[in-house]
């Protein structure tokens, strides 16, 4: 049938099974929004800002495993997506961003709201397209989804000129082919199995790739069969239930003591779907010195990029584990179990329970309804949440790991709510919340139930902590000096707010917040008063190794 470009786009999105789009209209996407209106088959969430739309599409993708979709107009609409696209790129989140652009007669003439968004997003997308011919539209959109959702997933941007949206051409519906991961080369597997079977003290590092490949059940089979402890990266949180006796907790700069101990004494590191970022391999040369490193990752460019591997396999983690599992021996490591248990006990004993945020987060994690996704912003609260808020299944954790985007949380929480149909818990700080608090308006407009735990300390906590450790307590520009009343702010946008002072009962306040959010189908902000001097510990300084973990700070 003959359709306009805008109609073809909507049809192609429907082909891909898109049911929710986050976006913001404007001059060069009028035709697309008109087609969306006429189609009536896709829910569109109008955000307060395009950045929020990009983060929402990202949050939606993280919790569903599907490709998130966002719309923006040309010029500033498109540039406002940039941080969201970069966030998805760094964390390998599948995203298709669709932007409009000026008509072909205006292109390259610095026209109103014209920007070279494909040029801008080259380094932060897997690939991008500018469509100047309506006949290329359908196949390009299909290809965009294929690129975003295959191999190492990531964002793709499609820029569609205004006249392409209006132009007509023949549209032939197509059913998208299921993206199948490439088969695993068997000869390499045998070597890996041999090394795994020969290891005395293995440790598994589960990264975001385990989640992306939906490989958590296979991971469980592997660590159970090997009787092997597992640590996870920030991106891998949820890959293993935190309640599992073999779960060591998080690895990295602010990873657990149990992980540091187990890693230090390990003879073999089995790294699954992880890229040894500088927040994990703080000293990339010494990270796995004298250890056998088995690295399995879907992206060949990650192999030997940061940490040199002994054996490697370029494969989807799920496919790799499926093929590897029959080749590894069942083990029982009783002595190691005892040790792991001791490490975990030490870990619990050294937890600083005087930290107010820690109490609030562990309590929230206990009280949150089953299946609530945890969403964080970036900074101290993010690390506290990663340390103390239990996430026991995959795809229930959204956090900006690679890019560390302050302001990510509010948009992502909206996306996570639409993706799961459940009530998200957003953990944020007053710095981060200030960056995208406008999206609270979106959450209210769409009646999204959500509990926002605002860790309110009046400072940029993580930056301040670094100033404390590395800059002799010269607190340059980290004191926010704001006198905003967050409870009143919440009420003013139509949400609910409640204060959790230092003397208030945590459990009671949180219960009230969860109940109210659920009942009224609205965001409830909990203004959690915490001290500016609470630190994220333990900590390993950049360039140092896992036997140099700092457990306490001398002068608070």
């Amino acid at each position: 049938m003959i359709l306009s470009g805008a109609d073809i786009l909507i049809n192609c999105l429907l082909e891909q099974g898109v049911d929710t789009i986050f976006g913001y209209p404007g001059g060069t996407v009028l035709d697309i929004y008109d087609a969306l209106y006429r189609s009536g088959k896709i829910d569109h969430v109008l955000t307060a800002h395009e950045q929020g739309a990009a983060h929402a599409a990202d949050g939606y993708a993280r919790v569903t495993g599907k490709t998130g979709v966002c719309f923006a107009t040309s010029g500033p609409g498109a540039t406002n997506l940039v941080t969201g696209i970069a966030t998805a790129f760094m964390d390998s989140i599948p995203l298709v961003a669709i932007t409009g652009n000026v008509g072909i007669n205006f292109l390259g003439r610095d026209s109103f709201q014209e920007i070279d968004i494909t040029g801008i997003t080259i380094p932060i997308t897997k690939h991008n397209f500018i469509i100047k011919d309506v006949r290329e539209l359908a196949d390009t959109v299909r290809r965009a989804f294929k690129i975003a959702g295959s191999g190492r997933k990531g964002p793709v941007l499609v820029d569609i000129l205004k006249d392409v949206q209006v132009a007509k051409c023949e549209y032939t519906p197509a059913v998208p082919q299921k993206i199948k991961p490439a088969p695993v080369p068997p000869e390499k597997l045998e070597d890996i199995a041999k090394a795994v079977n020969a290891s005395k003290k293995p440790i598994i590092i589960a990264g975001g790739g385990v989640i992306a490949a939906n490989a958590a059940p296979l991971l469980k089979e592997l660590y159970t069969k090997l009787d092997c402890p597992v640590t996870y990266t920030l991106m891998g949180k949820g890959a293993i239930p935190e309640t599992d006796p073999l779960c060591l907790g998080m690895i990295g700069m602010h990873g657990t003591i149990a992980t540091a101990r187990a890693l230090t004494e390990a003879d073999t590191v089995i790294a699954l779907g992880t890229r040894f970022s500088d927040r994990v391999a703080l000293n990339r040369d010494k990270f796995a010195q004298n250890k056998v490193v088995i690295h399995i990752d879907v992206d060949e460019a990650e192999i030997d990029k940061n940490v040199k591997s002994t054996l490697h396999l370029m494969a989807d983690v799920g496919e790799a584990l499926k093929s590897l599992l029959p080749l590894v021996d069942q083990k029982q490591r009783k002595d190691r179990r005892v040790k792991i248990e001791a490490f975990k006990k030490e870990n619990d004993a050294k937890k600083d329970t005087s930290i107010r945020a820690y109490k609030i987060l562990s309590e929230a994690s206990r009280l949150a309804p089953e299946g609530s996704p945890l969403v964080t912003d970036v900074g101290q609260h993010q690390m506290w949440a990663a340390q103390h808020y239990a996430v026991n299944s995959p795809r229930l954790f959204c956090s900006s790991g690679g890019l560390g985007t302050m302001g990510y949380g509010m948009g992502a929480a909206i996306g996570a709510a639409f993706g799961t149909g459940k009530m998200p818990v957003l953990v944020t700080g007053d710095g981060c919340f200030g960056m995208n608090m406008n999206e609270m308006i979106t959450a209210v407009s769409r009646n999204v139930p959500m509990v926002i735990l605002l860790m309110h300390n009046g400072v940029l906590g993580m930056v301040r902590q670094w100033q404390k450790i590395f800059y002799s307590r010269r607190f340059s520009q980290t004191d926010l000096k704001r006198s905003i009343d967050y409870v009143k702010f919440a009420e003013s946008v139509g949400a609910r707010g409640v204060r959790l002072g230092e003397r208030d009962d945590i459990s009671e306040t949180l219960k009230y917040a969860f109940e109210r959010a659920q009942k009224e189908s609205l965001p409830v902000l909990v203004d959690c008063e915490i001290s500016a001097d609470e630190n994220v510990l333990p900590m390993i300084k950049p360039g140092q190794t896992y036997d140099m973990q700092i457990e306490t700070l001398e002068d608070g």
Partner: protein
Amino acid sequence: MSEEKKYTIGALVYNKSGVLTRITGLFTRRGYNIESISACTTEDPEVSRMTIILKGDEYILYQLIKQMDKMEDVIKVGCANELDCVYRELLLVKVHAAPEMRSQIIQINEIYKAKTVDLSPETMILEITGDPEKLDAFLKVIEPYGILEMQRTGVTALARGKHTLKDRDGGEYKILDKNAD
């Protein structure tokens, strides 16, 4: 890190607008030290061939190839160092050539098999093709006469014999990955 040397990288890429930007952008972003790039369409108008001269160690070489290989517009990429290749570069150089100097310059041309392609009362344009070392040597001899301007095309390379980049299964990886397998 292994020692720094020069690597010749061949790549077949889709001949689309922006492909050069994508590739050079990758080099800038990752901090690769590129000595020259030459690119032009091939016998297939939809495909361009690039020859890249990289200065770096083996780590950079592997990274560059793997990162390029990930790009949607890159069809094949590989290092040609291990292959027996023909390397050629073209140089045009405009030299200061007063009438009394002309015969000297023409003599040099003869030795180096260079050609005079333009002559004016005060200048000459010389053209020479060869491997980069030959061009370097020629320039050294010509330099004292006064170079007014010059342009080199950058190195182009093709492997001798039956080898072709497009027919290599898995690209020149096989050669690169000799240590890994």
